[in-house]
């Protein structure tokens, strides 16, 4: 059943491979510098590697935006996104899988009563704007530098051709890796919260987590798209925004790949954080928009006369139309999925203003007198809880976020067996030992567990000046919240 529901994600992967291969190897294959088979093979391998090795970072952002928590819901979100891509491609408007999937997730949030995390959404939308600009800046700088090098060393046309040929293969592979790392979340991200696969260990050398298995499947779907349909796209798409010389094409692919890598690399983020620098957000960005930005950058350097502004205009239309259309299609499809096909489109997330939660909010200096009648009451969605609150205290945005955070009902049972089977890459030894002391306890709210853990050891405590530790801590907490999640029918909580 899971594989059936996964089909929409696989279809999305297929279309991603079919459409985006031309961004990376289009010029090289179109100008016969590399044979299609060689390019497709390199592209497929690199996409799969990028997806499996570095796909997780971006996916976290996507899950934060909307954790689609039911299989049929995830299917519908991916399906709506895929249909949007199909319709936009038919209409001849360049389309981004990142934008369509995010539009669809917001559609799911609206349908299911979940609140869209405004911080994540802002981060994503800002990145969409920054991505082509950054790509243009990169391409301008790289182009100026490379042209200067070529002129300085007076490289012979044939040697230059050979260098560009190897360069296109290298940056193409890098581009495909970055695309796999950055865009796999748009293909498989929505299935992460509902994936039922157990981890697979390869003779103890390495373990493929459930998410990585999903990414592998997604990567294979992209590769199939690359092999079966991308040649047609390369041949029919034509020259696009402007004619590119092989050197300019190399620079464009290089800039595109760097941008996609920047917005996908967890290690780079860790590096920046460990040096106290602001981290680059890990956000799914569009491969097409990155390449468009890079090409425009080179075009502007050449005076801007050769740029086809009509094509650029249609890309802007795509920016607005794609998420909107995907959101609408997703909402309608979810309605049909739930009412026509009787499938669970989402797992309700409930909110309870427990006495402990009230005590916590009270301790923060928030007046809670008027909330007495809400204590112990369960709300079926964030929206319902928000309305109940609004009727009594009309809270500010910050206060509302605080209530939603504190009152989220998330029952967890810390069992000894589960502690032994935990993923040791996600939780440090010290953190595990602290968890062992809590064995047998049950928690109703995530913060209750988090606080107790933070009191027990510094390993579970937020550090004031160690950003890398904080990042690991956040990931570990997310992991244990999900890992120890218990059935709601368990006996009443003791925390």
């Amino acid at each position, binding site marked *: 059943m899971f594989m059936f529901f996964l089909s929409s994600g696989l279809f999305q992967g297929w279309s991603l491979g079919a459409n985006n291969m031309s961004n990376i190897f289009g010029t090289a294959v179109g*100008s*016969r*510098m590399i044979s299609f088979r060689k390019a497709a093979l390199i592209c497929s391998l690199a996409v799969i590697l990028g997806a499996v090795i570095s796909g997780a970072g971006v996916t976290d952002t996507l899950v934060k935006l909307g954790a689609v928590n039911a299989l049929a819901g995830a299917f519908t979100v991916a399906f709506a996104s895929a249909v949007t891509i199909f319709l936009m491609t038919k209409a001849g408007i360049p389309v981004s899988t990142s934008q369509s999937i995010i539009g669809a997730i917001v559609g799911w949030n609206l349908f299911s009563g979940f609140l869209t995390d405004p911080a994540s959404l802002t981060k994503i939308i800002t990145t969409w704007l920054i991505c082509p600009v950054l790509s243009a800046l990169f391409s301008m700088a790289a182009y100026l530098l490379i*042209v200067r090098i*070529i*002129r300085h060393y*007076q*490289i*012979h*046309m*044939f*040697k230059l*051709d*050979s260098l560009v040929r*190897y360069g296109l293969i290298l940056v193409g592979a890098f581009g495909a890796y970055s695309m796999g790392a950055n865009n796999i979340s748009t293909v498989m991200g929505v299935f992460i919260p509902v994936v039922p696969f157990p981890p697979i260990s390869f003779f103890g050398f390495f373990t493929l987590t459930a998410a990585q298995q999903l990414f592998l499947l997604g990567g294979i779907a992209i590769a199939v798209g690359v092999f079966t349909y991308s040649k047609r796209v390369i041949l029919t798409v034509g020259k696009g925004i402007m004619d590119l*010389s*092989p*050197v*300019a094409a190399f620079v464009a692919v290089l800039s595109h790949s760097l941008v996609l890598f920047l917005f996908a690399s967890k290690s780079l983020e860790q590096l920046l954080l460990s040096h106290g620098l602001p981290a680059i957000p890990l956000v799914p960005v569009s491969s097409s928009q990155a390449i468009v930005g890079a090409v425009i950058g080179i075009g502007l350097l050449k005076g801007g006369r050769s740029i086809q502004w009509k094509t650029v205009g249609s890309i802007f239309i795509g920016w607005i139309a794609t998420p909107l259309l995907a959101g609408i299609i997703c909402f309608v499809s979810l309605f049909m999925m739930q009412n026509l096909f009787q499938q669970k489109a989402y797992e309700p997330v409930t909110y309870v203003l427990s006495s402990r939660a009230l005590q916590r909010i009270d301790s923060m200096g928030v007046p809670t007198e008027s909330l007495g009648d809400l204590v112990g009451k369960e709300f079926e969605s964030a929206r319902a809880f928000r309305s109940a609150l609004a009727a009594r205290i009309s809270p500010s945005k910050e206060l509302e976020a605080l209530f939603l955070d504190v009152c989220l009902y998330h029952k967890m049972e810390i069992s000894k067996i589960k502690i032994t089977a935990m993923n040791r890459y996600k939780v440090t030894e010290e953190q595990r030992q602290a968890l062992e002391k809590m064995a047998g306890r049950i928690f109703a709210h995530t913060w209750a567990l988090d606080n107790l853990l933070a009191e027990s050891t510094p390993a579970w405590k937020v550090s004031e000046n160690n950003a890398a530790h904080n990042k690991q801590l956040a990931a570990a907490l997310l992991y244990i919240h999900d890992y120890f999640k218990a059935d709601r029918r368990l006996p009443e909580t003791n925390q």
Partner: protein
Amino acid sequence: MKLNLFSKKIGIEEKIDGFLNKVSEAGLIFQSAMEDYFNGNDEVFAEKREALHRTENEGDTLRRDIERHLYTKTLIPESRGDVLELIENMDALLDYYKAAIWRFDIEKPEICREFHSDFRELVACGVKAVEETVCSCRAFFKNIDDASNHMHKVTYWEKQADVVSTRLQRAIFSRQDLRLSHRQQIRNFARFMEKISDEAEDVIDRLSIYIIKRAL
């Protein structure tokens, strides 16, 4: 694999350089052969005619090699057509030298001494125009920005050749003592010499388009 692929391309670079050397050498041989013709050194002229013939043959062999290389190894797919055309145009210049020297050998025109200096100048203009065309081609392959430094000189020598040719033709037809057929024959030779620089200019006109297409 990598080294092998690189070596193939270095090979073709040398072949192109060798081919352009042949065009350049042919010009020097041609100029020197014409000098011998005007000085009446028939034996030396015949030797140089043979030398030019050999150079032209070697040039042809190199041209065929380059063309085969470009087609079979799918090198520089973007500019391959332009490079092939350029090589063929340069080969046409080489052929032109050969045709000119053979024409002198076959017809043996009787050129009055007073026209010799203009003929020498006309030959020099043509050879210099071709020489600058060769330099433009080398720049096209190695340092595209430098090509224009040579291309404008081709135009200059072509204009010079026009001036000399017009002056020479006027002088030829002002000689009423010569038979009309004789005057027409010398005039035809003057125009034939003038056409060397015209051909060179045609080559650089096309080259300037290739340079625009090849711009980084």
